[in-house]
């Protein structure tokens, strides 16, 4: 009967304290492991980051960048050579063809300059300068596989006669400003890629497919447009 | 609101008073001392050694409360152990024990601190000043009293569109007129005695001491679930005559006390804590970003 025999209501306290201490000790590795990805995933990230970083490398030459990932290089007089940066090609992946406006037609800074055709999708890019197109890179038309091979050299896109060249160049980024901008792009892309590291595998699949397609297989073109400031 | 401040406060007062009387002997309830009610609880002592199983109490109860009248001449009703029901507030069961046949009456125990009263969210179930536990029609029919009763006494009319909770009321309407419960009056064998709970416990102890060996030395209901209005003495251990002996001596409302006491504390501390965290996390750049973009 209660009250007639000795009942130790704290009989299990000692065991409980020991249990709590061991659970807390167990909780430390549990917490550390659950709050960071497993080693295999982690290494995949580590290996891919330097590879990705190359795409954001900007050449030291006197190039002016538009935030829609086109560049402009002043040549003689008012003639400007125009192209797209390495990132643009890596983002879209394999480009089947480029649709240029007619030679002699006009382009406007910040408005549609040319379109990339990839698979069934067409993605516009913005012109970095105002002016009249005087030449397009015909070698890209005859051999589309060379698109993006040498983005700042052989794979230039077109030459533009730009009357307001000095005003146009003031709207573009170069040197330290350009590198800062590209660093921002890199960070935003890496943050996104973290979500889908499984898809961004260690092999070169990314480079062929394009980053955008790895982020979202269905609507990758929307992502590309977002980076090209189209949408 | 159809209720003024005074009745509300009074209502709160009785709520606490219910918790008071039975626990005044328990240590550590100093805070309840001031709300002990003035009137003593009444109760019924059931001497199972005297009960002859005539079921007169069943008959009297049914007649007094307009319930279907049982045929007490039909002895076959005693063949199986019955539970009280919506049409039968009290009944007598026959048990085979180590000392032969024993009859035990069953009905609401009228706990000092009833679980059903603490459970009721509209105060339809009430502990009256004289000890009766009664039901009223402002009940919502949630049946939480049935969950909370250690003796499974409140019964619900499932088959009615306008159901009631049915249970023994200790003939509360008779008590108010100064009469005894009808079952006590009907008992021909003096197995039932009606008096104040204090007197009944003394009487029970007197019988246990006087006729040494006849009774086991235990008054069921003296301390069970904090004490009950109905008290039982028996010649055989109570397990053998259908009583639960594992219910403990804690009054049932005490079981949810810990939680209920924590409610005001949590309601005070938690929002203050949350506002604190909310303020700390309000960094300047966050605010600027919010202004710029997402809400």
């Amino acid at each position, binding site marked *: 009967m209660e009250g007639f025999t000795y009942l130790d209501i704290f009989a299990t306290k000692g065991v409980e304290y020991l249990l709590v201490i061991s659970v807390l000790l167990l909780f430390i590795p549990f917490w550390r492991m659950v709050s960071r990805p497993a080693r295999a995933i982690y290494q995949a990230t580590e290996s891919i980051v330097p590879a990705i970083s190359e795409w954001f490398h900007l050449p030291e030459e006197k190039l002016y960048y538009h935030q829609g990932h086109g560049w402009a290089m002043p040549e003689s007089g008012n003639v400007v050579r125009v192209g797209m940066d390495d990132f643009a090609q890596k983002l879209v992946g394999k480009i089947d063809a480029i649709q240029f406006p007619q030679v002699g037609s006009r382009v406007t800074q910040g408005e549609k300059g040319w379109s990339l055709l990839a698979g069934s999708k067409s993605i516009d890019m913005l012109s970095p300068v105002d002016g009249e197109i005087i030449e397009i890179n015909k070698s890209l038309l005859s051999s589309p596989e060379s698109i993006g091979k040498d983005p700042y050299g052989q794979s230039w896109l077109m030459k533009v006669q730009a009357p307001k060249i000095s005003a146009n160049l003031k709207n573009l980024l170069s040197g330290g400003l350009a590198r800062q901008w590209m660093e921002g792009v890199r960070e935003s892309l890496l943050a996104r890629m973290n979500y889908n590291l499984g898809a961004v595998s260690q092999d070169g699949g990314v480079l062929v497919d394009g980053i955008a397609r790895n982020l*979202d297989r269905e609507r990758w073109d929307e992502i590309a447009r977002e980076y090209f400031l189209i949408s | 609101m159809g209720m003024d401040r005074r009745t509300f406060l009074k209502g709160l007062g009785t709520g606490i008073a219910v918790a008071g009387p039975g626990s005044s002997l328990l240590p550590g309830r100093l805070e309840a001392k001031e709300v002990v009610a003035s009137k003593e609880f009444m109760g019924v002592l059931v001497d199972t050694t005297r009960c002859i199983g005539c079921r007169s109490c069943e008959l009297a109860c049914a007649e007094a409360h307009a319930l279907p009248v049982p045929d007490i001449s039909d002895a076959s009703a005693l063949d199986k152990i019955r539970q009280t*029901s919506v049409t039968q507030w009290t009944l007598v069961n026959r048990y085979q024990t180590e000392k032969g046949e024993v009859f035990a009456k069953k009905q609401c125990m009228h706990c000092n601190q009833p679980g059903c009263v603490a459970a009721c*969210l509209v105060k339809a179930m009430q502990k009256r000043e004289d000890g009766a536990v009664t039901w009223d029609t402002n009940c919502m029919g949630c*049946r939480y009293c049935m*969950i909370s009763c250690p003796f*499974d006494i409140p019964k619900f009319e499932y088959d009615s569109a306008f159901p009631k909770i049915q249970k023994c009321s200790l003939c509360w309407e008779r008590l108010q007129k100064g009469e005894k419960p009808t079952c006590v009056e009907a008992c021909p064998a003096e197995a039932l005695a009606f008096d104040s709970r204090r007197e009944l416990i003394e009487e029970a102890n007197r019988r246990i001491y006087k006729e040494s060996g006849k009774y086991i030395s235990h008054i069921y209901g003296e301390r069970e679930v904090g004490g009950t209005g109905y008290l039982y003495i028996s010649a055989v251990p109570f397990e053998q005559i259908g009583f639960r002996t594992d219910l403990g001596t804690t009054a049932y409302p005490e079981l949810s006390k810990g939680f209920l006491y924590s409610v005001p504390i949590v309601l005070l501390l938690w929002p203050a804590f949350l506002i604190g965290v909310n303020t700390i996390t309000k960094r300047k750049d966050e605010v600027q970003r919010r202004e710029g973009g997402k809400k």
Partner: protein
Amino acid sequence: MNTVIAEEEKRELKDIVAFIRSELKPKGKLLTPFNLISAPIILLGVLLILYRLARGMGAVTNLSQEFPWGIWIGFDVMVGVAFAGGAYVLTFVVYILRSDKYHSIIRATVLNGLLAYVFYAGAIFLDLGRWWNITNPLWGNKFGVNSVLFLIAWHFLLYMLAEFVEFSPAIAEWLGLRKLRKILGSLTVGAVIVGIALSTLHQAGLGALFMMAKGKVHPLWYTEFIPVLFFVSSIFAGLSMVIFEGTISHRVFSDKISHEDHAAYDDMLIGLSQGCAVAMFVYFFAQFLILIHGWHWALLNTPMGYWYLTEMVGLVAIPCFMFFQGARYRNMLLIRTAAILAMIGIIVNRLNISIIAFKWWVPFSERYFPSWMEIVITLAIILTEIWVFRWIVNRMPVFGKPPAWAEETHQ
């Protein structure tokens, strides 16, 4: 900008009424498989509810004097409310901790929580034998302040209001009421704080209901810590529901979700599963501690003990490990499976306490099993909730971005 607002204010009430009436019409196909299955069930459910009101509880339920609470309480209310716990956990993370990561799912979660309370807690109405007295605890003449159920009744009501306030900006955006949207938006953080405090208490309170069922609930489940266990388990119950519901919503309503959110979604799932893993880890060892505290290990080698171990190991420890691995290896399938297992674990736990381990000594033949009518009514309630959820999601900015003007008026 100002002229736009001024013009909008000129819009007459008539226009809004006309707009609502046009919105009330169904959008999209009516004869989908889901509609064809759910509509008859809902219709039957309504008929059964009328029958129950006319003939009493006994006509449709298998409830008895031994088992006064069935699945309408044990499943609809206890499980429904636990699953709705995601709303208070996520509002805590988004509005108190200000983690923007989960912002895109906060509206869907709050809406889900609100509807869960309206419908599942609303199921209490059916379970009340004397339902016409339902307002008694609110403005009746008698307040049973000493009842845990009194507390829960008030908390449900207040919490529904808080969740409504949290969701109301979406309604204002839908109706194009800019001024109102601004006012409602400013109330959000207050509603969140009140909502979290209320949730903490009534999630625990649902467990505290069974404190006075001592001696009726099997000792392996009955403990004075039930309220704490209910609170902790509501955290991962709610988060698991968010994972589960989100998985379905992202298929069904994929056109409403911007690609950005699709991409961010997996990362959100990983965050949620980390939360689940930690909450379940703590919950599992709390249960273990309570087992030792109660000296109950001898009971483990009984049929009820095996059932207890099934719940604790199979439906707590294993899904906990799956969440853990899923978060580490970014395995979405594993996370989703874990969420379903954890949800089954919650259903089993709540039903154990309210029905299965309740009066465990009663023989099988006399035990409570829900009647087909109780199940149909429960299904009808769930399906109606899904219909309402779908109706709202198809009209108000829940998954998608709010209109541009609302983005400018930040909170």
